[in-house]
C-alpha cells in the first residue's frame, strides 16, 4: 500500500516539475519583447510582442474596423502588411482572394506581432476614436426598427461625414454571449455632433440587436468607435437618385441633414421601399426635408399594400418604381443602402437606364 502511495507521489511530483518547466520555457519562448509597428512608413509604435496586430493597434488607440471582436469570423479588419507577418494563415484564407493575398492584405486579428512589422492603413483610420456614449432616447420607427439616440460623453464631439458609420460594442449581456462590435450607419445631423443617432432593424436572434432592443436602457453607458467608411455623396452637382430599404434609411437621413446645412441646391430623389405600409418610416421628417431642401423628393414605395392601408403611393418593388420614373439616368448619380438583394437589383436597373457603374455608390449590408 505504502509503495503505491509513494509511486503516486513520485509520478505527481514529476508531472508537476514538467509542468513548471513547460511554463518557464513558454515564458521565454513566447516572450517576444518589445516590437515596432511602422505604419504607412511614417508612424512608429512600440508594442509588447506576442499579441494580435488588431489588439496591439487598438491598445494604442488606432481602431481598424472589426465586427467580431478579433475572433477571425468577420473578415473586416483587413490591412496591408508590408513585412514581418509571416505566411498567410489557414484562418485568413477564407477571407482573402488571390489578388488580396498577392497584395499582402492580411486579417489584422490573425497576424501576431512577433517581431518588427510594417503595415499600411488608410490615413482616415488615424482619426478614429473611441467614445463613451450614453443612450438618451429610443424611438419606435416600425414594428422591427428603432432609432437610438446616444449622447457623446467622452470625447463629447464626433466629427463625421454624412454616410459614415460607427461600431458599437455590445457587451456580454447574458451567459454565453461574448462581447462583439457591430457596425451601424450614423443617422444624425453632422452639425449636431454631440449626438449620434442609429437606426437599427431587429435581426432575429442577432446578438447585438437583441441587446439593443431588449436589454439596453436609457441612461446606459456604451462604448463606440468611429467614424468609419467611405460612403458619402460626391461634390459634383449632378442630380442624385437615392434608393434604400429598412435600416438603409440611416445614412440618407444624415446626408439630407448635410445637404440642408450646406444649402445644397442639388436635385435628389429618394426611393424608399417597404413590403407593407408598416415597413415605412420617417415620412414626416422626409416631408420636412422636401420643404427645406431646394430640390428633394421622397418617394415611398410599397410592394404589396393591403386594401385596408388605402395606399395611394407607388407600388411594386422599389426597383420597379425607379424604372417607371426614369427613361434615362445617364446624367445622374446613384446612392444605395440596403440588403445585398436590393442593392444588386438596383444596380442592374440603374445600369439598364444608362447610369455608368462608376456613378453608383452603395453601402451594402454585410
Amino acid at each position: 500500500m505504502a509503495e503505491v502511495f509513494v509511486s503516486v507521489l513520485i509520478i505527481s511530483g514529476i508531472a508537476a516539475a514538467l509542468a513548471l518547466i513547460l511554463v518557464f520555457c513558454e515564458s521565454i519562448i513566447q516572450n517576444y519583447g518589445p516590437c515596432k509597428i511602422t505604419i504607412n512608413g511614417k508612424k512608429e509604435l512600440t508594442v509588447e510582442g506576442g499579441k494580435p496586430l488588431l489588439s496591439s493597434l487598438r491598445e494604442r488607440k488606432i481602431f481598424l474596423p472589426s465586427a467580431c471582436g478579433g475572433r477571425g469570423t468577420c473578415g473586416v479588419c483587413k490591412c496591408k502588411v508590408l513585412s514581418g507577418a509571416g505566411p498567410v494563415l489557414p484562418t485568413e484564407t477564407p477571407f482573402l482572394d488571390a489578388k488580396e493575398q498577392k497584395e499582402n492584405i492580411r486579417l489584422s486579428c490573425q497576424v501576431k506581432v512577433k517581431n518588427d512589422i510594417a503595415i499600411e492603413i488608410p490615413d482616415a483610420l488615424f482619426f478614429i476614436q473611441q467614445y463613451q456614449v450614453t443612450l438618451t432616447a429610443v424611438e419606435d420607427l416600425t414594428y422591427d426598427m428603432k432609432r437610438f439616440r446616444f449622447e457623446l460623453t467622452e470625447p463629447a464631439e464626433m466629427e463625421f461625414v454624412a454616410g459614415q458609420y460607427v461600431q458599437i460594442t455590445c457587451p456580454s449581456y447574458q451567459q454565453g454571449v461574448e462581447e462583439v462590435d457591430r457596425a451601424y450607419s450614423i443617422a444624425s445631423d453632422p452639425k449636431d455632433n454631440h449626438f449620434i443617432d442609429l437606426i437599427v432593424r431587429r435581426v432575429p436572434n442577432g446578438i447585438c440587436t437583441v441587446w439593443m432592443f431588449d436589454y439596453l436602457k436609457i441612461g446606459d453607458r456604451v462604448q463606440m468607435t468611429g467614424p468609419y467608411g467611405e460612403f458619402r455623396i460626391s461634390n459634383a452637382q449632378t442630380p442624385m437618385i437615392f434608393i434604400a430599404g429598412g435600416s438603409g434609411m440611416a445614412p440618407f437621413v444624415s446626408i439630407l441633414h448635410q445637404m440642408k446645412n450646406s444649402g445644397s441646391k442639388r436635385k435628389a430623389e429618394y426611393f424608399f421601399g417597404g413590403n407593407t405600409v408598416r415597413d415605412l418610416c420617417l415620412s414626416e421628417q422626409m416631408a420636412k426635408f422636401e420643404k427645406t431642401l431646394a430640390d428633394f423628393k421622397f418617394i415611398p414605395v410599397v410592394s404589396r399594400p393591403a386594401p385596408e392601408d388605402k395606399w395611394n403611393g407607388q407600388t411594386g418593388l422599389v426597383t420597379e418604381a425607379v424604372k417607371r420614373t426614369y427613361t434615362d439616368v445617364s446624367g445622374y448619380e446613384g446612392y444605395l443602402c440596403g440588403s445585398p438583394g436590393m442593392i444588386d437589383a438596383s444596380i442592374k436597373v440603374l445600369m439598364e437606364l444608362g447610369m455608368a457603374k462608376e456613378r453608383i455608390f452603395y453601402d451594402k449590408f454585410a
Partner: protein
Amino acid sequence: MKQSPQDKNLDRMLRSGKLTAGGFFGADSRSVDEVIAEDAATLIKLGYRVAQVAARMQELRDLARPALGNWVRVNDTLQVKSEDYKGMIGCPWPHSGQFGKRITAAQRLDTGQSASWSDLNIHLIEEHGFFEGRGAFFRIEPEELIRVIF
C-alpha cells in the same frame, strides 16, 4: 465515449453565444453526434436524404430572393419569401464559410403550416447534417420541414 479535443472545441463553440445569441443548442444536453444521428434517423424514416432536403431549401430560397422580402407562389399549395438582415454569420465548424443573415420562410397554403431557415441552416444541414439542438432559435424539426417544403 471520450471526446477528442476537436470535438470538445466544437461542442463549446456550438453551445456558446459567440456567433448567435443563445448558441446552436438551446437547452439541449445531447452531444452534437447524438443530435445529428437522431435527425438523420428521422430523415431515413421519412425517406429523404440530407442533400435532398438542403437542395430543396436552397431552391426555395433562390426562388424567393428576387421578390426582396415579398411572398412568391411556388405552386398552388406553397409560397416562400426571403428577407435579408444586416450582417454575416460564420459556420461554427472549424472551416471557412460566411453566410448573409438571410431568412427564408415557406408556408403551405393548404394546411397553414410553415417553416423558416437561414442560409447558415442550409449549410449546416448540407455539410454537417446538423439541424441544431432542441430549443435553439433556428432549430429545424426535420419532420415539420419536410411536411412544408416537399
